[in-house]
């Protein structure tokens, strides 16, 4: 018996004007299964996340999250359902402190965004929770620094902390290790694995680096020029001839 998928995509397609970037994608992400979407640069991974997270409206197909049709739902309402994302290019609140970066989503999580009168400094519960989250991602000592002052790798961790603050069911991570040195990459991979085990959160990540992805994901989808090329376990994908060809950059049969 297979459990109900947390994310289900049916025949998703998208075009920018006349340019078709995505066609006929159907896939499912099972809750608790670390899933990855891989493919060479320009394959359409970021576009796919933009569609799932609500940044763009798809031109074809439908998206179901936790059994609910979210195809036309605005981005912020998808978040309220527990669907969060990170961005390929670090996306944080640069001039807020690291703690405030986490307090923003926490206030929203507790429906306090429209409290006009109580002082933020009295929201001790929120502050304590924010500190716990920073502890989990290893940024507790940086809490009072401004986010933009942090090292690159730490800024990417701030974004993970921001996402965790909404207590997500599913997190889309768009190339979480992009631009990182090997040491930072190692730390990020370790963190994602740890979070996946400890919390009830499912992670769905994209990567263009096959080595990273084979070490974390237990199920893979391969995207190539906007279409799904293959899917399977890391071992199945590793042995797939079509995937190898795509990554070598040539379609040998044309």
């Amino acid at each position, binding site marked *: 018996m297979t459990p109900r998928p947390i994310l289900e995509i049916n025949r998703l397609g998208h075009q920018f004007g006349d340019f078709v970037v995505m066609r006929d994608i159907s896939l499912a992400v099972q809750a608790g299964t670390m899933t990855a979407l891989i493919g060479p640069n320009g394959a359409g991974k970021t576009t796919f996340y933009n569609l799932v997270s609500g940044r763009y409206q798809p031109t074809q197909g439908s998206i179901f999250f936790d059994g609910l049709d979210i195809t036309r739902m605005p981005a912020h309402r998808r978040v309220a359902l527990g669907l969060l994302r990170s961005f390929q290019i670090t996306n944080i609140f640069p001039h*807020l402190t690291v703690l405030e970066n986490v307090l923003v*989503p926490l206030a929203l999580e507790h429906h306090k965004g429209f409290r*006009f009168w109580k002082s933020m400094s009295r929201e001790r519960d929120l502050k304590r929770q924010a500190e716990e989250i920073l502890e989990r991602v290893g940024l507790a000592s940086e809490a009072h620094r401004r986010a933009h002052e942090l090292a690159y790798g730490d800024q990417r961790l701030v974004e993970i902390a921001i996402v965790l603050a909404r207590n997500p069911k599913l997190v889309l991570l768009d190339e979480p290790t992009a631009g990182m040195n090997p040491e930072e990459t190692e730390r990020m991979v370790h963190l994602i694995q740890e979070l996946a085990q400890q919390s009830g959160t499912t992670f769905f990540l994209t990567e263009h680096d096959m080595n990273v992805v084979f070490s974390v994901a237990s199920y893979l989808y391969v995207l190539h020029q906007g279409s799904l090329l293959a899917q399977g376990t890391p071992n199945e994908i590793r042995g797939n001839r079509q995937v190898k060809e795509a990554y070598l950059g040539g379609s040998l049969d044309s």
Partner: protein
Amino acid sequence: MSARGFSGSVIATLVLLALLLLGPCILPIYWTMIVTEIFIMGLFSMSFNLLFGFSGLLSFGQAGFFGIGAYTAALLIQTGFPSLWLIIFCSVLVAALFALAIGYLCVRRDEIFFAMLTLGFGMMLFTIAHNWRELTGGSDGMPLCSVPPVRLPGIEWSLFPPVHVYYFTLFWTAAGVFILWRVVRSPFGLMLTAVRENKQRLAFVGADVSRIRLAAFVIAGGLAGLAGVLFCVFNRMATPDFMHWAFSARPVLMTILGGSGVFFGPAWGAAIFFCLEQLVTAFTENWMIVLGLILIPVVIFFPQGIVGTLVQWLGDRKESRS
């Protein structure tokens, strides 16, 4: 650090308030009236800065709401409304409702498009006030022969003497500033800062960015309306000039002069503006040229404004000593 900094700024504010309460005892009547005007424009600029400095929204139409506050008050006073409290309440409400309607159409746009939309609506409101002669008296405005007194249990306080107007204005300015102070420190205030910082990230952690902006727009519009009521009482009239787009530029100038990054920056900007005007007009009629000559170096060399730069400089010194 923040606990000490907090009580320090509260003490500084209370000292300032005490000085302002003593103002009319020290100042000649002419300056009492100028300080009254500084209160009004200070509140107007600070309400503008809730949008500009805190939320990153440059509105060029705030005079519209200022003017709606002033005209609503003038109309209610003319029809013989007896209660000043109710007049203030209704005028602020009407200004806030206009802000709700206009804001709804503006907040989905960014930067220059937002600025142009607010400018456009501001010009429309001006034109209505200017051309609807039957209601507003057109370009002559609406002069008021009398203003109802402030009524408290057992007291009736006439708003005829300028000193009374001074205290009346000080009270309502302080009330407006207190509201702004609470709002910017609240969780909602944090949302505003987040809108300014990165509205995309904010939307993708589940905030309805347009609603947050709209709420800020309504608060700013309501408080601009309050400033307008005060200006109407101060001048004993409402004129279309209050709604002209050149009047919308005033809070922008004052905020840039004082500094948008400091809570009281815009109010200090208003104070600097009026004091300079007094100083300069003693020597020349070309006050606007001098203002331009001052603004240009401020924008180029002190983009955080005069007070903003001072505050930062003091902060740096404190840090380097400790």
